[in-house]
């Protein structure tokens, strides 16, 4: 924030009417965002600490809450690496090569963005649920997918599927392939080229895509809610635990868990801002 070149035009004469307009627009913006973003965030923290720090901390000693936190971490630990790998592969294929059907592929990758999270859960119930395509077979072999961890992982993966790819595709397209072509021409193999040439170039975009993917993976509610079955201590993730606690009028606990998730969101935004600042500094 401090230092650096002036980003805006030098101060110039502004007519009083125009200045009043400016102030009004800025005030409207801040009031709107304050009401919509700050007030709810403050409410989460206020409610979480409504009965003091001790009660807040006690919320996290509850066995179901602990297992919900563990399940959330486990889900993210599976989903994020897989989607990162996919995102890099998809971005490489799409940004480095020209082939037929490319725009269709991009549209299909974006598809989960456009689909309701409830539908994202529903489609897996249609496949693996008791009346689903493979439901009978799974039942015969005693494999549980829906109302169990595999279903939660798959639904989360579906919802967070485009995040890394979406971040990397425009970045890699904009960067072009000259440097990679030079590396290959000079005799580097594919793996070396990727690690030494491409990865450093896309590093910040990749980090941003990964943390966004992670935030969504940990916070997904609708899709997970459909496939989880809400079995306490077994198939509840943190957002589902928030819902359970809230519906049982255990407000302090509900908001305490929610405040952890809000903290995750804020950390995500801080990293994002930092990444953008890095990118700005390099290009500007």
């Amino acid at each position: 924030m401090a230092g650096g070149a002036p980003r805006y035009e030098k101060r110039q004469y502004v007519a009083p009417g125009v200045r009043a307009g400016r102030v009004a627009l800025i005030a409207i913006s801040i009031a709107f965002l304050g009401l919509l973003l700050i007030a709810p965030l403050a409410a989460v923290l206020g409610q979480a600490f409504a009965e003091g720090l001790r009660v807040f901390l006690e919320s996290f000693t509850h066995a179901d809450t602990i297992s919900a936190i563990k399940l959330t971490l486990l889900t993210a630990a599976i989903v994020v690496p897989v989607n990162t790998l996919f995102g890099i592969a998809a971005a490489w294929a799409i940004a480095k090569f020209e082939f037929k059907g490319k725009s269709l592929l991009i549209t299909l990758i974006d598809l989960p963005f456009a689909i309701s999270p409830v539908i994202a859960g529903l489609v897996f119930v249609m496949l693996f649920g008791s009346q689903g395509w493979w439901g009978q077979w799974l039942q015969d072999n005693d494999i549980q997918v829906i109302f169990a961890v595999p279903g939660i992982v798959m639904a989360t993966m579906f919802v967070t599927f485009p995040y890394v790819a979406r971040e990397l595709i425009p970045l890699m397209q904009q960067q072009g392939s000259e440097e990679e072509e030079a590396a290959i021409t000079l005799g580097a193999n594919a793996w070396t080229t990727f690690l030494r040439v491409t990865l450093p170039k896309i590093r910040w975009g990749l980090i941003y895509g990964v943390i966004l993917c992670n935030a969504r993976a940990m916070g997904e509610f609708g899709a997970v809610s459909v496939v989880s079955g809400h079995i306490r201590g077994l198939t509840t993730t943190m957002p589902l635990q928030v819902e359970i606690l809230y519906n049982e009028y255990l407000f302090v606990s509900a908001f305490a868990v929610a405040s952890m998730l809000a903290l995750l969101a804020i950390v995500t935004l801080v990293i994002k801002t930092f990444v953008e600042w890095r990118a700005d500094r390099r290009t500007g």
Partner: protein
Amino acid sequence: MAANWFRQPSILPGFGLTLGFTTFFLSALVLLPLAALVLRTTSMTWADFIDTVLDPRALASYRLSFGAAFIAAIINAVFGFIVAWSLVRYEFPGRRLVDALIDLPFALPTAVSGIALAAVFSPTGWLGLQLQERLGIQVAYTWLGVVVALILIGLPFVVRSVQPALVEAQRDLEEAAETLGAGPFTVFRRIILPAVMPALVTGFTMAFARGVGEYGSVVFISGNLPLKTEITPLLIVIKLEQFDYNGAAALGFVMLLVSFLMLLAINLVQGWSRRRQTGADSRGGRVERRARPRKKTVT
């Protein structure tokens, strides 16, 4: 190996591997499950399908989901534009903080924003209490609550769409218009609005599409009364809980169809804006794209 009719030659390696993995993973994780949903619907009889889809409860839920999403997207288009304008054109204390905050609804789990909004707008919440006592308006547990939740969810789509368009807009045109005697309103209507219209429409459509399918942030504030404050995604969940797979699939199919139409609309708008801005790279608002570095435009 891929033949030449399929792709242009390149010396870079990894085409087969990366494209193969991408299409395989996409098919297994996204396309196959979606196909399962569609096929489930086709196994129903036409009469059953129509009965489920045009059930009064379903119709009421469409009205709420689409209506609230539409109103929220309109409000977001107006205020999102004002916010984007303030962030791009003006310097004020805390501007960078506000800019970072815009993405909060992307990063905040929907269940958290749901209970947070319920806490603020419920009749016992501080804002809900004020609105109730001063104006007699109840927000939580009415359709207004749904609108408020969808405004929160959709806001970043509009702001992040419009921001880059405003950065790229040609300031000298505005200045020229002013020099020629145009008032602020004329400049806005004739110069600024046409320049940002594609981005605004894209942002509006994305906010609307997201709002129609939103679940987590809505169910806590909406009250979930059948025929009154029950959104379509919730109705799907209820049908699933009653093990009415066909009913859930039919409603899911309707929503999926709408999503496809939205996606098509967004692509059309983006194509239109690309054609308008010849020479510019592909823009017009992508989901969660980073704001472009705002460089000083030297004239």
